[in-house]
């Protein structure tokens, strides 16, 4: 039997990690993702005790989180469960809903600032057309980043996550790295 070894979205054995000044960008290889959509006439569930957020919002629970992705649709995240069948687990907790496994369709980058909100805001200003006055902790949106469609999540003042298509993980890393480097050089 072949010796199969899993690789990350960026093609390495271990997730990539790099620092640029106060910013740290980390490939989050362990994040499990599943999308969930209400069907007509179903009751809105509360999977893992999550009160599903409204438009433009993200909410975190114990090791799981949910972000609104469209009318009656959410993406559910679970830390460290990428190797498990998270979608099946979610399906049990969301009766009548359409649940789809998403983990391997995406790459997730966690970006943390060691100097407060300033560097995060500067990075976002460079990369996305999002009104930062209205993008505090608990906000999440899909938008274009260098022509790539991405989810941007504000996990806290100094911590954002960018979820992009796994097939363009390298280009997304390049965009984030370039912007972060330029901020560092400034």
């Amino acid at each position, binding site marked *: 039997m072949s010796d199969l070894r899993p690789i990350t979205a960026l093609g390495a054995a271990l997730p990539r990690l790099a620092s640029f000044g106060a910013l740290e960008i980390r490939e989050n290889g362990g994040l499990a993702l599943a999308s969930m959509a209400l069907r007509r006439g179903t009751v809105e569930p509360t999977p893992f005790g999550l009160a599903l957020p409204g*438009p*433009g919002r993200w909410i975190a629970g114990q090791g799981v989180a949910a972000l609104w992705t*469209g*009318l009656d649709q959410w993406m559910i995240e679970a830390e460290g469960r990428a190797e498990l069948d998270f979608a099946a687990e979610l399906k049990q907790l969301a009766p009548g809903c359409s649940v789809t496994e998403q983990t391997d369709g995406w790459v997730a980058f966690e970006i943390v600032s060691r100097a407060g909100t300033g560097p995060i805001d500067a990075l976002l200003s460079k990369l996305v*057309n999002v*009104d930062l006055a209205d993008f505090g902790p608990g906000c999440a949106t*899909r*938008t274009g980043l260098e022509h790539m*469609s991405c989810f941007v999540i504000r996990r806290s003042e100094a911590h954002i996550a960018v979820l992009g298509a796994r097939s363009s993980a390298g280009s997304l890393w390049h965009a984030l790295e370039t912007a972060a480097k330029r901020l560092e050089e400034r």
Partner: protein
Amino acid sequence: MLITHPLLGLRDAQEFTYLGDARLIDRPAPSAPDAEAAFCDYVFLRDNPAGVHRELWYHEHGDRSWLVVTRDTVTHEVLGAELARNVALARTRCSK
């Protein structure tokens, strides 16, 4: 241009793709006796006014919703936007 998304507030028009005249919602009945001519008009003809225009925009880099945007084609001013699904559902109810 900034489009006033009914759920997400002001969003850059770059996040959207454009389909055209909102009358494309009104698909002709395929079983009507004049269906062939009606479909020809539906597919090919447009009002194309200079001024206020109701048109379909798709929030591709966003929540993937279809919007009916009311916009002035002379000034590019966006005058309003609503979810196309609400527009379509309201019409279905009217016709019943």
